[in-house]
């Protein structure tokens, strides 16, 4: 059975005819939003994370028809006028990108977290970890992902890390 659904994605309104059995992941990818990756299709990995409203959601577990009337963000829409978003830039600065397959999903999770906690001065490393617990990354060991988020929350002192000596020896 097919049904028409309408939603806003990356600021644009669209109407699509979808099979009611399809996940939002499948529908988005079919329509060219290929930043949304499939790593498991059953909610284990977070590679398919998008924002629905302000909430990170595994789009593989979300039926396309549920998106009717919603506002969706994918990483394709995070670059404005050619400028990377703060989170995208922080991922590059921190070296949080390797194979890049987890990256679009992780950036959306980080974006939701950073937007929510922009003015929260008491965010700990543990809070950052908890917010990203649904996104697997096999390449980075997560260390640089945490640093990227820290950079967004304390942009004036991006290189400070009070939690461990990890950075003391990093790099040179």
């Amino acid at each position, binding site marked *: 059975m097919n049904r028409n659904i309408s939603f806003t994605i990356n600021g644009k309104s669209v109407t699509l005819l979808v099979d009611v059995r399809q996940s939002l992941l499948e529908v988005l990818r079919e329509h060219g939003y290929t930043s949304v990756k499939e790593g*498991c299709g059953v909610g284990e990995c977070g590679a398919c994370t998008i924002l629905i409203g302000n909430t990170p959601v595994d789009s593989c577990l979300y039926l396309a028809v549920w998106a009717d009337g919603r506002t969706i963000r994918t990483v394709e829409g995070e670059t404005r006028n050619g400028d990377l978003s703060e989170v995208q830039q922080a991922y590059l600065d921190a070296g949080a990108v390797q194979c*890049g397959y987890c990256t679009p999903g992780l950036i959306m999770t980080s974006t939701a977290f950073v937007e929510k906690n922009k003015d929260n001065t008491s965010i700990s490393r543990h809070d950052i970890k908890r917010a990203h617990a649904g996104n697997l990354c096999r390449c980075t060991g*997560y260390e640089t992902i945490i640093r990227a988020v820290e950079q967004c929350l304390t942009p004036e002192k991006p290189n400070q890390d009070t939690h461990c000596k990890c950075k003391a020896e990093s790099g040179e």
Partner: protein
Amino acid sequence: MAVGKSVQRKDGVAKVTGKARYTDDFSMPGMRVAKYLRSPIAHGRVVRIDTTRAEKLPGVDGVFTFHDVPKNTFATAGHPFSLDPEHGDVADRLLLTDCARFQGDEVAVVVTRDDMTAHKALSLIEVEYENLKPLIRMQDVLAHDAPELHKRSRNLIKEHAYTVGGDYKKAIEESDHLIEGVFETQIVQHCHLENHSSYAYMDDMDRIVIVSSTQIPHIARRIVSEALNFPLSRIRVIKPHIGGGFGNKQDVILEPMVAFLTLKLGGIPIRLKLNREECMVGTRVRHPLHIQVKAGISQEGNLNVIDYDAVSNTGAYASHGHSIVSAAAAKTHYMYPRAIYRCRARTIYGNFPSAGAMRGYGSPQIIFAVESLMEDAARKLGIDSVDFRLKNAVKPGDINQIGKRPIVTAGLIECIEKGRDLIDWDKKRATLQTPQTGPVRKGLGIACFSYLSGTYPSCVEPASARLILNQDGSVNLLVGATEIGQGSDTVFAQMTAETLGTSYEKVHVVSNQDTDVTPFDSGAYASRQTYVTGQAVMRAASELKDKILAYAGVITGMNPGELDIDEGNIVIAKSRQTAVMSLKDLSMDAYYNKNRGGQITSEVSCKALTNAPSYGCTVVDLEIDIPMCKVKINEIYNIHDAGVIINPLTSEGQIHGGMAMGIGAALFEVLMVDPDSGRIYNNNMLDYKVPTIMDIPGLGSGFVQTHEPTHPYGSKSLGEPPVLTPAPAIRNAILDATGIAINELPMNPKTLFTHFKNAGLL
């Protein structure tokens, strides 16, 4: 200067904006999907298979079984071809089998218009199996009456043994202590986030084009040709961005099948993409090893002998087979090369998923055993673990006893010292009372490794690079080496910029390998690319530079020897100030002057005839909650001698990723196979405990930069080594905390519980 700087990754922007395209992000009109029918049992012969009902289903283009595929067996391991037939990989695979050798073996394949039809079609295939006894445990596989997994194999792929470095017997007799241990390592899965995926079609010249998530496009091309008896020159393999491989894509897994299917079905585009459950079992895993180690030590703490006997289980099909344990044995010797080194190794079959290459290539298993035993030795003698290693660690000038070659750069001692200082070893050691009591206890651990940079002289080490000067003065770099996330494109661009005298931004890397376009290279494995391909890149860049300067001489009438390139300008070599002309102006003249010039390019294809050991260690400070059987890592550092670091930021990333993978294997990960039935319990990422961000502690890293003279920029391997030592370091720290030696992996709560219970701690 581009080398030594943390320049931004070449593919960074593409990846953070979601523009980077992976295999599944491409599609073609009319593309069909293929799906395997996998055996539900671990060992059994197909006695009847009926596909009639599936074939009749609307939307089905084809159903194929063992009867339809070529009958020549082929080897899947991603090694370059060996001219020595003795050294070739074991050819034991067909495209589809009539004998299931693991739960998930491929007995049929359907090609249909979409996924749903594929599932339906698979459910309509009827198969009857004759059950055979699954062989999982080593003793079952080697029992004299065990059925053979592969005919005439005796379930043994290969074995070898050697002793190097001197008189073994004498050294044993002269040792004051003999320390022994038996170690078991588990089946680990790579869990790269992008599952295996390939598609193929035939082009207008009747050639097979394969787009695949592979680390080894050129090797894949040859193996497809062998598997299908199809001319190699009529096969083209394209590698787009790839979502991690870790060795699991250093094997030819889907490519021969998609090529076969498109060939059978008139060239239509067909996609074969594994889901996670299939990828966990139907690709490759890490070899589980059973290792007996013995060490002979003098009273003063000198290591006289290391002796081990390893049995490596490769599972259902050989894949990389015996290479794993033999390469690991050879690489581990570089750590303590003054000791007599004896090794015996066997590789056997078993009814579980095929084991192949995985980051570290057998070394994580061997090093777990050796470095655990070194810890036991230090403790027996009452010598501090760090001091014991400092006493025995490799020094520059030591001789590698296997190849009888001197070891030139060896920063292991400095790595150990740096690790010791970073973690405050001496101070913490002084305050830790022994033995400890109470439910939560603290421990310190260390473990060292040695590794190599590539596979020479075991295998050929070919690499090529092509450089083209563009009209705008920038250059395009083409390599056959593959970027798989490790950052190779970036370091190649840095090397090019450095040698050429242009800026990093002006070097464009053609990142997607295409065997029609990018020159020959064997690909991403053995931590070889920076070391091996780097040599080709450097030579191509100096050749291009010579040609550019010669052409500048032609234009200006000046002596090319007096010119140089600086920041993209031709300058007077001496003053470096005066720009004679820009590279752009020079290039425009070369392209378009009616009477002279031509496109300026360079191309180098060469082989590495050297290898260089890299070194390092992990130090860890942890605490263990005995009633909870839970390990908490307080601090952990990996220190590496990878020669000169080309890009500190991406290098650090390699270390972090390897450490996390090492910690995962140490504490959480195991693919669970029922020892009686061969049933796999956790073929997904929920039940298979791939670490989440919550499981990984803060990761620290450090470098000891030696300058390796056999590499143009002084660099050595770094991609795989970080995974090697976290597990033994953690095991040694648990021993430090509790007095209990855990000689099996993973050290998850289940394992810890058993050991603590047996020791009376619970």
